[in-house]
């Protein structure tokens, strides 16, 4: 199945929660999903036999620029059974970045969501163990945000050099 057909199935099923289908840019087209519905959409994609998206290849947070008002969370999912893939995108406002977790659907999302939380500060509701993963627990700020300024000192050590 190609992304266009999957988009059609999702709009029939979820209606307004499916916000659009972006094909203008080069590369992979992606389906925009309302953040509140992302876990339900993923659950449906996994459980429907004709779709059967059994593997989450990659989950990434994205910040397109300091002037943008939204972060995106991008899900690259794949079905080993049917050998098709699709890209989902959920955009959350930077001031209140939270969306439901998918870690109960694919276990690999556990660490990927922790990474997105660690580096972007996006909160995943329903994640059982949302804490920093790559950075120290007492690190301040979220480094992959475009407006991030590194601290001068960390525990008495100079940071920029």
């Amino acid at each position, binding site marked *: 199945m190609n992304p266009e057909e999957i988009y059609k199935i999702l709009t029939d099923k979820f209606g307004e929660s499916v916000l659009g289908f972006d094909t203008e*840019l*080069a*590369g*992979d087209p*992606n389906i925009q999903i309302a953040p509140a519905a992302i876990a339900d959409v993923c659950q449906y994609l996994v459980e429907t036999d004709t779709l059967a998206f*059994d*593997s*989450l*290849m*990659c989950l*990434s947070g*994205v*910040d*397109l*620029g300091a002037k943008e008002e939204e972060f995106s969370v*991008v899900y*690259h999912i794949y079905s*080993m059974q049917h*050998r098709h893939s699709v*890209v989902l995108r959920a955009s959350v406002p930077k001031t209140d970045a939270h969306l439901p977790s998918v870690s109960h659907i*694919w*276990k*690999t999302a*556990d*660490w*990927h969501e922790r990474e997105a939380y660690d*580096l972007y500060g996006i909160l995943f509701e329903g994640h059982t163990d949302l804490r*920093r*993963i*790559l*950075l*120290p627990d007492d690190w301040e700020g979220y*480094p*992959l945000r475009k407006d991030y300024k590194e601290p001068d000192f960390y525990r008495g050590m100079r940071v920029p050099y």
Partner: protein
Amino acid sequence: METTQQTESKIIELKPFTDEMVVNMGPQHPSTHGVLRLELRLDGEVVREAIPHIGYLHRCFEKHSENLSYPQIIPFTDRMDYVAAMNQNWGFCLAVEKLMAADETKDFAVPERAEYLRVLICELNRIASHLLSFGTYGMDIGAFTPFLYAFRDRERLLLLFEKICGARLTYNYIRIGGVSEIIPMEPGSVDEQNFLDEIKDFLDYFEPKIDEYNDLLTSNSIFSERTMSVAVMSAEMALSYGATGPNLRGSGVDWDLRRDEPYSIYDRFDFDVPVAKDIPELGAVVGDCWSRYKVRMDEMKESVRIVRQILAEGLPDGPVMADLKAVRPPKGEIYFRSEAPRGELGFYIVSDGTPKPVRLKGRSPCFSALSALQELSRGLMVADIIAIIGSIDIVMGEVDR
């Protein structure tokens, strides 16, 4: 009537656990393959929970990349999985090339000669990587000899890599649009012939060695006892945790990107994909530590097969670099995955049409595989943890990026 003493002894029986003890394993520990720290919660020698703490080797690869042009990022990918750096270079270059190919106004293709060189070098690099995995795994389990043998053979491969790109570990050899020409090798020249002859000599020497290593370690009874039926990862679990490559095939899933989603020129070669099977007479179960290890041993043979096919055909004539004025992918985004020795290496690139990426994410195969460790190790012995870590074959440079 029960005496107080009797009641007390009953209470003791009802409480089968001793006090929980927390032990830090790592970050400085030779058998954690780098700087991995495990917080072990122990009941005697039984592991109740092994919680991995990572990030000790975090070097902000993704943040750095946002401030570098695409060709400048290639040396950084070397430092992700430094044991198989050629494959990391290649994965990144493939992703950028695919995004550039999406721009129809520009027409470029990777030259044939470069494609052959890429497959040749990356398959040799896969052998080098699996050799290291084999050697250190033996040492983890307590066998020192395989380590020395593996490093002796790996040394010959590193010398070959040094001849073609001048570096032994971090190569920066595969570039966007082709391969580096830092050490010129004219098509049909004596240099090329010598280089190919040297590879052939290595393969002739190495192929019988694989059987020797199987005799030495794979069928060794101490090694088998320690690894067979230990930490069985079912196919569903492996898929859910995103385990890929030899870890996934060790769980019995017949999946290899080189065959199932062929990129570059892999569709021209004839090779098998080793998948783990139950071997009742030995005691091996699909998905145990031994199966994951065995898949790697078998994969070395397949890599030898691929390289032999290239040597038989010979390298085609022509340039090794595409005619590229500048590396400037169009506005858009791409996710591309390739089969690195440790599994599926993906790069997610968001481009805004400038020479620098807006966002670059490296999807590391070890990162996903390591997340299964907590569930795999529950209820096993401390010594089994060492067997699991070695069998999922992690490189912390790639986990932490």
